[in-house]
């Protein structure tokens, strides 16, 4: 995979968002928010292990794990009253969880701008998703040493 390209799963998500009319695009984001998996107990009971993403209007917390075989697992925590933030996390989880570190690091930072949500959600709110991705990538680089 070359730098700055979408992996097939993210590409499919971006295409799904591009294919539906405006009103349904928000519903699609809501569906991603509902599909975000809950935190496993090891994080739910130790939220201090999560990194805060203050760029999101409602703070979001995340953790990044890399298995021995190089598979990356992503964990997110955001309250139910922040469905937009949860939706962004749900998209990143659906599009990136289970990939390799290199595949995730190759994701363009401007991915969030490909979802055609600027007018519906506002660029300010979208910054939160770019910040989540940036922090995931930074954690991966740190873990790679």
């Amino acid at each position, binding site marked *: 995979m070359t730098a700055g390209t979408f992996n097939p799963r993210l590409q499919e998500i971006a295409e799904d968002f591009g294919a539906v009319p405006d009103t349904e695009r928000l519903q699609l*984001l*809501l569906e991603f928010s509902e599909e975000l998996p809950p935190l496993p107990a090891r994080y739910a009971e130790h939220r201090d292990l999560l990194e805060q993403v203050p*760029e999101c*209007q*409602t703070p979001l917390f995340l953790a990044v794990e890399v298995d021995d075989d190089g598979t990356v697992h992503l964990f997110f925590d955001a309250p*139910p*009253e*922040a469905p*937009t933030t949860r939706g962004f996390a749900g998209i990143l989880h659906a599009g990136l969880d289970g990939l390799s570190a290199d595949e995730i690091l190759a994701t363009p930072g401007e991915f969030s701008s490909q979802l055609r949500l600027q007018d519906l959600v506002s660029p300010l709110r979208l910054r939160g998703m770019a910040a989540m991705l940036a*922090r995931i990538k930074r954690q991966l680089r740190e873990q790679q040493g």
Partner: protein
Amino acid sequence: MTVVLPYDSAPKFQDYARPEMLVTTEWLAGHLEDPGLVVAESDEDVLLYETGHIPGAVKLDWHTELNDPVTRDYVDGAGFARLMSQKGITRDTTLVLYGDKNNWWAAYALWVCALFGHPDLRLIDGGRTKWIAEGRPVTTDVPVRPQADYPVIERDDTRIRAFRDQVVAHLGQPLIDVRSPGEYTGELLHMPDYPQEGALRGGHIPGAKSVPWSRAAAADATFRTRGELEAIYQAEAGLRPDDDVVVYCRIGERSSHTWFVLHHLLGYPQVRNYDGSWTEWGNTVRVPITRGESP
């Protein structure tokens, strides 16, 4: 001549300067079907309405609907008329606003509607939090309201809105900074990876007293009583009842809440919201800034 919907006669409201600006959840539950009433939800999160809202309520988003998409300003008279008409709101509508986080964004939406002088604006005391906490009905059904014909009314920016040069001229007179203590002292800009603030300098406008906006709300998201509010804004922050006050925060949203409290609940005759707020002041060349805890 249109008939004004009855006001909520809740005893707590009668102590406020303008009791007609508030309704209780109980009052609303009994008036949801009234013709001439439109309920609008305005939240920080643009999707929260979609997860469930008061039956019949329309959505009013501060960012995508009330702001001009290009210029840093609010919609103009034609844009506001189009927006209200789409939502089935006429100039005679009793527009009842509510939202999340102690009505933070609902107060902002109300302030923008007040720039256009909409005659009958009310807030639900306690907002979304209280309605849901009381187990009242919510729905994901989006109401289909007939298109209305809202007139084009030019925005009046002279009474309740302040611009930067007016704030410069106001220095030395009462100012309330409603941001968090860390933003007020200037510490927060030093947090790493916090581009959201978007200001090059930290601190506050010289002379501004720090009263974080949410102090006006009780634990159940309702407004504090008049006596409690006077203790905060008069006894503690030192405002006098005839003061000309300017309030600000980061982009003018949290300070709309304080504007509502000072103007409508405590009856200050002149309260202006400086919506440029810290994202303008903290980026402006050579305006004075004070760091630290003292005004």
